[in-house]
């Protein structure tokens, strides 16, 4: 019996006006994990459906950005990246940043985009922004391949801190989810956030040490401004990610601030999402 595998608590549901207690209901997500996978697959398939270049786009976009960065910041500005060639330096930052930007951009409008489903059937709504984080893995994988290719080309070995890479990758995923969950819930309530998301992505690219080392900023500004700089969760995470791959400057004490902000945003986001979840069908 396939049904026997389902947990027992789904067999009795009580629906009341004041909600289902204080829990986040994350356990239910486990039951809906297949939906998460299938929705991510759908997004992936639809994204490049009927495009001539297909998956090549996932490669071309970061490659083009990288080229511009290399010309402008690498050659023209001449940013000092130590022993690491500039293109590789920028690519390692791009990998985490473009994942973050993709997930943020997609999940911001994800609930509105799924309104037809939301008005017709029950499922934990969190599955929708979560599925965007899964689709982003495709881009993340492609930019990672790009980095690998460049490392082979420049004959650069991974840094000795390589073991920390999964940790910073995970932090990047959580940061993307944290902000994405906030935006998806806020956009339902206030459509203004549809305009906020592209703005965040645009500004964030320059407020994050993607094209330059964080020290360039932190050494030029007073201490309080450096603290503000690291309130951006991606600041510390991008630095850490690059350090783990290339052995550039290690993430400083302020990087923990970024990780802390990520954690606070994530937990806060989950609770905020939960509070909006029940009214989503009435609001969209």
């Amino acid at each position, binding site marked *: 019996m396939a049904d026997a595998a389902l947990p027992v608590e789904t067999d009795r549901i009580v629906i009341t006006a004041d909600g289902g207690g204080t829990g986040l209901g994350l356990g239910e997500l486990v039951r809906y994990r297949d939906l998460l996978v299938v929705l991510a697959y759908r997004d992936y398939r639809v994204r490049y459906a009927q495009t001539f270049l297909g998956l090549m786009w996932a490669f071309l976009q970061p490659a083009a950005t990288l080229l511009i960065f290399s010309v402008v910041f690498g050659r023209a500005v001449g940013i000092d990246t130590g022993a690491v060639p500039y293109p590789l330096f920028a690519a390692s930052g791009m990998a985490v940043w473009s994942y973050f930007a993709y997930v943020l951009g997609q999940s911001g409008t994800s609930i509105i985009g799924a309104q037809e489903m939301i008005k017709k059937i029950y*499922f934990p709504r969190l599955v929708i922004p979560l599925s965007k984080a899964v689709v982003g893995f495709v881009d993340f994988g492609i930019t990672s391949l790009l980095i690998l290719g460049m490392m082979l080309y420049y004959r650069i070995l991974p840094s000795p801190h390589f073991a920390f890479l999964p940790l910073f990758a995970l932090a990047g995923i959580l940061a993307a989810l944290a902000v994405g969950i906030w935006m998806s819930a806020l956009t339902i309530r206030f*459509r203004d956030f549809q305009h906020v998301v592209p703005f965040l992505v645009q500004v964030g690219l320059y407020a994050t040490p993607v094209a330059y080392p964080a020290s360039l900023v932190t050494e030029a500004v007073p201490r309080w401004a450096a603290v503000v700089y690291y309130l951006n969760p991606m600041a510390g995470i991008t630095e850490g990610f690059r350090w783990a791959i290339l052995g550039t400057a290690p993430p400083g004490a302020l990087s923990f601030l970024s990780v802390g902000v990520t954690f606070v945003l994530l937990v806060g986001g989950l609770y905020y999402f939960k509070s909006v979840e029940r009214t989503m069908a009435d609001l969209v």
Partner: protein
Amino acid sequence: MTTIPEAAIRVEGLSKRYAIGRAVHGSFREQLAELLHLGAAKRVEDFWALRDVSFQVPRGEALGIVGRNGAGKSTLLKLLSRITYPTSGRIEICGRVASLLEVGTGFHPELTGRENIFLNGTILGMSRQEVRQRFDEIVDFSGVAQFLDTPVKRYSSGMYVRLAFSVAAHLEPEILIVDEVLAVGDAEFQAKCLGKMDSVAREGRTVLLVSHNLGALRSLCTTGILLDRGRLVTQDTMGRCIEAYAGIKNRYADTAIVDRTDRTGTGEVVFTDVAMVSGTSPDGIQASGSDFVLEFELHKKTPEPNRRVLVWFQVMRDEEVFFTGNSELYGPLELSRPHHRVTCTIPRLPLFAGRYEVRIFLMVDGRRSDYLEHALAFQVDDAPFFPGGRTPTEKDGVLVDQIWLVE
């Protein structure tokens, strides 16, 4: 866990309120304005879609829900399906639920039939494993096997609906909640769906069904509930519920338009009367192919003139036959006096013999000002529509006037 509860669904004092007359998705500016009491306060009206509804559905029973449009049927199903949540009251459901408020929820046009089966199946609450197990049955039932790897955007609407229903039909819940999904597909497929529903009900599963197809309700359901304007009128056998429902429909139809209370809208301009002045009124019989004239009496309650007023009406015969209004030809009306009479003539009424109903709508400045269902009923009698004297015998759709030329 020692006692097995008798009722599969227990609903107690269930109410759902919606705020109308205000955009629900706010913007910061609106919220700020509200906080600071800037500008004129927007009128917010409460609308009770459901009011203090209580009933129980014993395990294994098939229950039909009837009521006019706006009676609260859909709201009730949405609450039972956890799509929206009650304002007050309580629902207790024992058993694994599947709710079908539409077929093909989540279907994506770019994906193939095969992919959509998995997508739709998991949305309906199946695991991929369960979909895989039932995959062949689903495909067989749908009859679209040879198009499985074609994107569904290339499907005909019939194929699309058949595939969508097939996925839904292979859910194996203990409680099935269904909204009007039987009204899809061709007659043959509908019969197949009804058969499936019937076997589901016979297997001892609990079924809740909303449908305007009273025949289907009568044959599938043993008991029913009747809702009217958000309240539960009766819970009884399905047959008696349908009788009571017919009673409600007639009661509204017998009341003069001006006294009707079952209307929705802002009420700035309202209908005070509507009459068919052609044919052999007062018995309201119209010959097919003769000129058809409807007369609307309007009352403007606000003093400002020059409102952009649209009068629409929808001619129904179970389903919509046609829908038209003054803006189609002339643009909005401008009303200056408190009372106006508006007349619409349809030359050579292209309807087959039968009984028709009219719904009437009034829009003022883009907002619904007045809306009434069952505003008028009329009978069309057979008459030779075409000069040749022969009248087609089909019972649905419309007669089409035409000119042929042979060269």
